[in-house]
């Protein structure tokens, strides 16, 4: 399946229609139109009005920096952890898996609030500020939001790769490699890992969506004044524009990944046949 512009345009059309329908839902369902009083190209946070352009691009850049930084950090840490875990004995692996279910259940809100409170607690006790906990005079902060946002994706990716690893380890090619006398480390690193990374692409959509929701909570708790907060408070035209700014690049990414993963999967199927 190659990337086709026509399919992408069709997808964009449905996204635009969907966002338009959603943007008129409040007056449609509830019968109260808050857009009548608001300006079209502005959004207001706590009764202070911001114009949509060009502020939104700065916010977008800032939020996406945090988003992708935490995504990559999460991915790398999950890979390293998986790698270490596969070399450990079996019962420790099961123990780790149990703990992952526990940590996975933590709401994003809990992690954000707990980190913020603990940083302040450390500061109060020792006078050592680990990282800035909130935005002050619009000076952007990076460290704490990125750490907070990367925790849950790390756990989820770690769990997924562990599961995939388990599946992969029973496959014939691993047995053959073992029979050939290759070391466990070499097989895992050279063969199993590659296959896992391609199968990990199946879950990209759920991880992206999950992280967008997390990003919103992180921005709200750390008072980051980022893109998702602008998204939250915008209505009407501003809502449509912000939603489109968010949706269009991501849909392009999804489309590219899908065409790539689709071709990889087909290749696998052909090889299997």
């Amino acid at each position, binding site marked *: 399946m190659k990337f086709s512009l026509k399919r992408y345009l069709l997808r964009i059309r449905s996204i635009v*229609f969907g966002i338009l*329908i959603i943007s008129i839902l409040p007056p449609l369902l509830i019968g109260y139109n808050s857009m009548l009083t608001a300006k079209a190209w502005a959004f207001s946070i706590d009764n202070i009005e911001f114009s949509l352009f060009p502020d939104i691009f700065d916010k977008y850049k800032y939020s996406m920096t945090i988003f992708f930084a935490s995504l990559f950090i999460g991915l790398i840490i999950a890979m390293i952890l998986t790698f270490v875990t596969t070399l450990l004995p079996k019962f420790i692996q099961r123990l780790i898996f149990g703990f992952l279910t526990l940590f*996975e259940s933590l709401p994003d809100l809990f992690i954000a609030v707990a980190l913020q409170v603990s940083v302040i607690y450390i500061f109060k006790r020792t006078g050592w500020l680990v990282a800035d906990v909130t935005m002050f005079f619009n000076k952007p902060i990076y460290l704490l939001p990125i750490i907070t946002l990367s925790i849950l994706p790390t756990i989820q990716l770690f769990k997924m790769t562990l599961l995939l690893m388990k599946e992969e380890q029973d496959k014939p090619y691993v047995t053959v490699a073992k029979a050939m006398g290759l070391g466990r480390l070499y097989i895992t690193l050279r063969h199993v890992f590659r296959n896992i990374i391609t199968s990990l692409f199946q879950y990209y959509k759920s991880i992206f969506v999950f992280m967008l929701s997390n990003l919103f909570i992180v921005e709200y708790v750390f008072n980051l004044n980022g893109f998702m907060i602008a998204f939250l408070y915008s209505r009407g035209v501003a809502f449509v524009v912000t939603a489109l700014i968010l949706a269009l690049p*991501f849909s392009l990414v999804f489309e590219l990944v899908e065409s790539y993963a689709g071709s990889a999967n087909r290749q696998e199927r052909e090889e299997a046949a």
Partner: protein
Amino acid sequence: MILKTFMQPSFLFGFLFILVLLIFSYHWPAIFDVNKEKSLELLTNKYNDEGTVIAVPPFKPSDVPPFGTDVAGKNLFYQIIDGAKYTILIAFGIAFFRVFVSVVIALYSPKSKISYLDDLVQATLYIPGTILAYMLMTALFSKQAMEPMSSTKLIIMQFFILIMIGVLPLISTFSNEINSLLNKDYIVSTIALGSKKTYVYYKHVLPELTEKLVLVFAQQMIQSLILLAHLGVLAVFIGGSVTLFMGEPLEPIPFPIPIEGEWAGIIGMSFAKLQVTPWAVLFPLAFFAVTIFAMNLMIRGIQNSFEVKSRNSGVIK
């Protein structure tokens, strides 16, 4: 089948936890042997024997064990125990109606493609559920401020919003699932032999769907719990809120207080004063986390029991 699911230790553990929490929530005045009104009233300053003030509300967890009090001075532990039933039942209701409505719609027209629906599903992917819910809820509150409505009507409207948000993606998953089931050989031949559609759905499609339905229901319950917590932080409460004015008489600070006592309300009420009473936010959130963990355990138990079943049926074949 149900017995087998209950035999799974992880399911049993999660189920028992939620059951015990609900029992405590309904009967806590009797269990702890306290007066309900008295233990939920606002606490005033604490004095020592000589009559000097030793502590003022909000009390720390060390002053009023085990969890301290919230900003206003209400005992947090009793509030959390009392709110458990509302929280769990609200999440249960939302998840149940989401699954129910989407299955009914998907069964009603599995093959016809509703294009508007696909558009909406495509778009909701990029708009977090919390933002969508907040947008609709604020419109609802603005309307309520202009033309007051009864709290029952408000709660019903809020339920409707929370259910509708989750229904759309579920319809598309279920209709895909049902479509693939309807294309199976034995169902095609059953229809070709002239059985009624309702019979086929009732006899063949729904039993095949059971596993998926139960799992989706549990996942939806977790999602609604998280959504409730998020909305609580955004000061959107189920059942609306009363705004009290605190602070100096000349500079009143609006302070929304939720009417219903669910956990999200406790979080939202204390969130603005996070640095004063961090425990009043962290303890309810921890309860959310533990409840979600119990749900996850139940999901694992259900998955295990279905795996055992499919393995056994494979042996028989």
